[in-house]
């Protein structure tokens, strides 16, 4: 389970405006962060009045292209950026999340480079916490595809003829704290560009932290044999042959012998 790129919002662009309001991507409400990259074809300073959005950097590339980078916790509202002067411009939000940790909106390591020729480059950065995600963001003043640096995953490369610009997001996991991301040199528009590398990182635990705890009683039906009613009784069977009364008597039959002179007469 690692810190990952979680998606992007719909790219916003205009052929001429002094404000831009990019859409917010879907978030999972688990403590992720949003990045916003904003560009305009001038050197005006970008500002944001939407609560919770913090500016990380802004770099001018030549006299007619500037790009700024912003960060906010995922619960922040979709931002609106403004500047002075109506020019071609655009902006896009990307989302990062970690299933096991809230992410930090304070960025320790960030590097930015500008140029106006191919390739687009940026210097390596060093991570400050375990399990961080290295992210690159590229914004260019021409709608030419931006290549994927070796060893990185390109999360998005998109552009528009409306403002004639291009932007890209990519990422890869750092190892332990102190890891380096490596310098980037990739093919892109031979026009003004700005490229950043930054570390998206977890919040730091100051010690043993518990965010959820429950206790519960494990209930079992008593495992011993149990009875709800008990009675005792004598089981009585008839025993040996028993007699309560015994009598003895002589069975007397009448004598039938004619020879018996004891009878007076017998007729057959």
């Amino acid at each position: 389970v690692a810190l990952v790129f979680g998606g992007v919002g719909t790219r916003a662009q205009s052929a001429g405006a002094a404000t831009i309001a990019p859409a917010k991507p879907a978030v999972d409400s688990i403590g992720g962060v949003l990045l916003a990259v904003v560009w305009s074809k001038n050197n005006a300073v970008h500002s944001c009045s939407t609560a919770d959005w913090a500016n990380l950097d802004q770099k001018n590339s030549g006299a007619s292209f500037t790009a700024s980078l912003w960060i906010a916790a995922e619960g922040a509202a979709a931002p609106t950026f403004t500047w002075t002067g109506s020019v071609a411009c655009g902006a896009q939000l990307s989302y990062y999340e970690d299933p096991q940790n809230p992410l930090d909106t304070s960025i320790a390591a960030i590097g930015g480079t500008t140029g106006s020729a191919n390739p687009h480059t940026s210097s390596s950065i060093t991570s400050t916490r375990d399990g961080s995600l290295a992210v690159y963001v590229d914004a260019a003043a021409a709608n030419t595809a931006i290549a994927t640096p070796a060893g990185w995953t390109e999360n998005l490369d998109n552009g528009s003829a409306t403002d004639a610009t291009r932007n890209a997001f990519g990422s890869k996991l750092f190892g332990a704290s102190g890891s380096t991301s490596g310098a980037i040199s990739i093919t892109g528009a031979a026009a003004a560009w700005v490229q950043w590398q930054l570390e998206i990182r977890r919040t730091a635990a100051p010690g043993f932290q518990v965010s959820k705890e429950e206790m519960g009683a494990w209930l079992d039906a008593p495992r011993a044999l149990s009875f709800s009613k008990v009675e005792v009784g004598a089981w009585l069977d008839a025993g040996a042959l028993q007699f309560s009364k015994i009598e003895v008597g002589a069975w007397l039959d009448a004598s039938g012998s004619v020879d018996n002179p004891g009878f007076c007469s017998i007729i057959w």
Partner: protein
Amino acid sequence: MANQYFALNSLAGCFRSSSAVVETTTAGRFDSAYASNAILVPTGSDFAQVKGTFLDGSTSLSALFYLRFDANCSAFNSSAMVFMLNGGANAYRLLTTSGIQVQYWNSGTSAWVNWGSAFSPPTGLNTFVLKLTPNVGFELYQAGTLRASSAVVPTNGAAAVDEFRFQCGNNSSNYYYSQIMCADYDIRDSHYMPELANGEGTYNTDGTGAYTDINEAVLNDSNAVSLTASGQHRSFTKASITVPVGQQITGMVVNARGRIGGTVTDGKILCKQGANDTVSAGKSYNTGYEPRWHFFATDPTSGSPFTQTNYNSAEFGIQAA
């Protein structure tokens, strides 16, 4: 010997989900005689994940076990409600595309195979108990009645289970799980009475954060109770319980989702009763939030199984290793 493997009723016992797994307090979605909330698993690919070192110290179940849980839903028409894995690979599941069908994974053909027959339980709140011996057979009970079984030995089946995922088996509305328990003995009549912290305990001076940082009813790991030095501890109170007739307290389960950093190398789980406490060994916490569980079979004061009185006066908490 009877072994309890896990019992949980909230996110404290689950790995941190990559999407919205939250709790609810809506009545009817759990048995209010025992619980006051449930784990909500929305439609889609979300799940409440249970894995790790079980309460008995084991990490894998290869012999007979009983899995008991209450589930509330409005349909069985999508995916699976309970998904079991072994080493990250498919093992067994309760398919819910039409009623409930227990299946095992044939690793030789890489296919799910029906095991026993399907049945269609009523929707709403149901108590399910799966009695499963990996690679041997199963019985599935619903509302105390045997609904499906098989003694047919699986072909190329998984020899063990080390992970449980409680998913949404409905493509249009949430699933709610409560009183999830697992043990190696018959727990068809067993229950889990969970509680969240309702106040600070008598160990209340160390670290930062409050009991309200660990008892939220939504997914929120942005605030926490933090102990920044070895030996620091905190305890919390909870509401009293009345053990229903016919039940007895076998032990106290404490689930704590935590992480480590700074100079603290591990975390422990404690139970405090009266002037005494019992503290677990280090639970091998990592730098990312993960659940850890502990089972206290006896109360720290008497050394005997908890009476209701002693259970109700006990506190639960954490300690920095």
